[in-house]
């Protein structure tokens, strides 16, 4: 082990300057995001610009991290017959251990250590810190593994550059192709088989670089290592075209869906379903792809101080041979990001309002109308709790755990008061997704929180839930920095038949922030 550390120390000694710069840039990116509010003249476009800037910075840092990880491997090149270490008594297993340990230290532990003061300064709890460090390690691990696999079979930096560019272009296309990301949703593949394929593809995709790495470090037989990569590619193609078995969990079947629905049922919560399907005249006969299914309805029965949110809709079609195929659905209503006013008020300890039940709607376009449709709706019941309150004046702050809320400005306009808030929260990368209707959307969406605000005076004679608009959001390294705008309508008093703004209504006003967090999930099955 001491020799492994000896190699690690040498690598750190070699890379300390670029590594230090990289870490400084990682820290600067995060600090820029944290302090961004005060830096920009805030408009939606300026915020978008800053958000893109920070995101681009993140991509560049990822690329630099990838290059540094490759450098770490190529410092003791595995391919070159001129590499000095190869005629020294250093075996491949020891070198692999040293490089892996070095990568862990340099690209996971050190960045986490550098960011820890920022995270702690933002009030992260131990769990949030662990989550943030875990997310960082996962991301670094994936980048390092990819860099190691490529650098391990590359002799020169020029070759590495060319291959990295080639891989950056071709691999996403290949992965998209085999995973069906470019294909239309649904299709003829039974859902269990499709899920099994997805798991297999993921396993092959993760194992192939690891096997390549182990093989290359232990044997240094580059052609065979490249052949392992080729075998991985062939296996993935084989899975895509030839895998017809279903080893997915029993949860894929409709019966188990019903069981799951029953288990997660909340007797108080009611879903009303209205079906509106449209199909062309001959669609039913020919099975042409000109069928549209829409379902909508209301969700009711959420306890006071909570609300219901539709997180995802997953469609299945049972065909004549009893196999199941997926049907793409998207949620067009019901995925509300702002809580209803009544729920906010009740959660804030104020009397509620009479409100209409929440509506929901989903639709699927152009699918085969034949067979039995089943759609599993996944919803969440979100319960509110008061995070705290802050006086209505610029600079006022509310700090609760990792949640920071600060009033940046209060502006009087024709429509009333416009209050700009800057906020900072813990936020984890796995909540982001390219596809809001993707296979993991139910899991991802069901973990999102929603905030509501109540404006009230000390005597509670004036209470208002202001309209909330998001100006912009910047997400970096498990932190979410965002700015929202509350529009407050002033109360009026009628004097001599003329409605006038109530004098002194702003005095003693406070803003109460209410956070709604997912309490439990709910599933409902609808079928046609």
């Amino acid at each position: 082990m001491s020799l492994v550390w000896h190699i690690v120390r040498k690598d750190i000694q070699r890379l300390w300057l670029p590594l230090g710069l990289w870490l400084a840039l990682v820290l600067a990116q995060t600090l820029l995001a944290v302090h961004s509010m005060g830096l920009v003249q805030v408009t939606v476009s300026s915020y978008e610009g800053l958000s893109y800037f920070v995101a681009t910075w993140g991509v560049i840092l990822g690329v630099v991290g990838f290059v540094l990880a490759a450098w770490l491997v190529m410092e003791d090149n595995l391919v070159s017959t001129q590499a000095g270490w190869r005629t020294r008594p250093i075996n491949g297993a020891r070198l692999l251990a040293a490089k892996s340990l070095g990568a862990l230290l340099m690209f996971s532990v050190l960045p986490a250590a550098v960011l820890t003061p920022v995270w702690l300064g933002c009030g992260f709890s131990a769990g949030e810190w662990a989550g943030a460090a875990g997310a960082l390690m996962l991301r670094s691990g994936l980048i390092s593994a990819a860099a190691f696999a490529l650098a391990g079979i590359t002799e020169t930096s020029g070759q590495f550059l060319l291959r990295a560019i080639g891989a950056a272009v071709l691999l996403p296309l290949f992965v998209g192709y085999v995973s069906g990301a470019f294909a239309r949703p649904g299709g003829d593949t039974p859902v269990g088989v499709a899920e099994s394929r997805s798991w297999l593809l993921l396993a092959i995709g993760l194992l192939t670089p690891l096997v390549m790495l182990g093989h290359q470090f232990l044997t240094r037989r580059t052609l065979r290592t490249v052949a392992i990569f080729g075998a991985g590619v062939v296996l993935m193609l084989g899975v895509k075209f030839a895998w017809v078995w279903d080893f997915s969990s029993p949860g894929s079947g409709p019966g188990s869906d019903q069981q799951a629905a029953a288990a997660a049922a909340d007797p108080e919560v009611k879903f009303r379903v209205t079906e509106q399907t449209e199909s062309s005249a001959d669609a039913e006969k020919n099975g042409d792809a000109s069928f549209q299914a829409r379902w909508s309805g209301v969700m009711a029965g959420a306890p006071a101080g909570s609300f219901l949110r539709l997180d995802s809709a997953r469609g299945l079609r049972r065909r004549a041979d009893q196999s199941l195929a997926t049907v793409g659905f998207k949620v067009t209503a019901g995925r509300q990001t702002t809580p209803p006013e009544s729920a906010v008020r009740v959660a804030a300890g104020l009397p509620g309002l009479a409100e209409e039940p929440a509506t929901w709607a989903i639709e699927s376009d152009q699918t085969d109308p034949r067979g039995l449709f089943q759609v599993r709706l996944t919803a969440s019941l979100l319960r509110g709790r008061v995070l705290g309150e802050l006086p209505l004046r610029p600079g006022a702050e509310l700090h609760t755990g990792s949640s920071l809320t600060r009033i940046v400005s209060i502006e009087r306009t024709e429509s009333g008061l416009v209050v700009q808030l800057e906020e900072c929260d813990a936020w984890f990368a796995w909540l982001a997704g390219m596809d809001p209707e993707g296979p993991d959307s139910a899991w991802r969406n069901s973990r999102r929180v929603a905030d509501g605000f109540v404006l009230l005076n000390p005597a509670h004679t004036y209470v208002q839930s202001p309209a909330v608009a998001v100006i912009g959001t910047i997400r970096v390294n498990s932190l979410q920095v965002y700015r929202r705008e509350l529009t407050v309508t002033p109360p009026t008093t009628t004097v001599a038949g003329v409605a006038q703004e109530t004098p002194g209504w702003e005095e003693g006003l406070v803003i109460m922030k209410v956070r709604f967090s997912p309490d439990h999930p709910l599933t409902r099955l609808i079928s046609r």
Partner: protein
Amino acid sequence: MNIIETESLTHRYWRTEALRGLTLAVPAGSVFALLGANGAGKTTAIKVLMNLLRPTAGVSRVLGVDSRRLGERELAQIGYVSENQQLPLWMTVRQLLNYCRPFYPGWDRALEAKLLAQFDLPEDRQLKQLSRGMLMKVALLSSLAYRPQLLVLDEPFSGLDPLVRDDFVRGLLEASELGDWTVFISSHDIEEVERLADHIALLEAGQLRFTETTEALLGRFRRIEVTLPGGPARLDAPPAGWLELEQKGGLVRFIETRYDRAATEQACRERFPEAAVLAHPMTLREIFISLARARRAEVRTTAA
């Protein structure tokens, strides 16, 4: 006992056969030189021996172990210095030695200090700031300080100016007195090899031309001058061992590759009765050049 043995060792780079059936034995304690022109296959042979390349066919054993299975234990007993070896140029001499030391249980700090002083190396200077000659000395030092059983030098004199080359050879000779190692050296710099080697092997186009002791080699090559008192004579059907046979007036010159005083004089007198025969010793360089010429002529004849 042989430190290195190869049997029918072959290596191909795609379609090019760089090494063809090399069979070689390097005795323990010898300074063995593998000679050959550029592209003869010397470096390929060494890379196969050091497990940097895998043989396409044949077997090679280094320190009694199949070269494909050279492990930490064997590599701790082998010093390797090559003209193309990648050294960590960002390190200082001191850092390189500090880095190498823990990998060798037999690292001798006293020898390290002695060699440092002997090679006159600046400890705190980065390798990238050193001249090529200095770099080779650093590589040599880091390969000698653990007293290896076998020191492999691949074209160590390449690119060194004559002064540095002489310095390096002197350093090598002095170092050889400090340990009991076998040296396997590949080079096309014959003068330097002549000063060092006690065994010679010649590679030509990947094939072994001969392998023998330096003494035997120098002993069996002579430049012969035959003075003919009666003017020019017929030179047809010379013996197989005569190279570069030429006649200028009454003087016949050739290179005898199987010199034996009595036998050579007898062979001359059979062809040139009453001639005066003079035999001049040859240097390794002259031998090498005459063999290269003969090889070239042979190739031309075969091609024609």
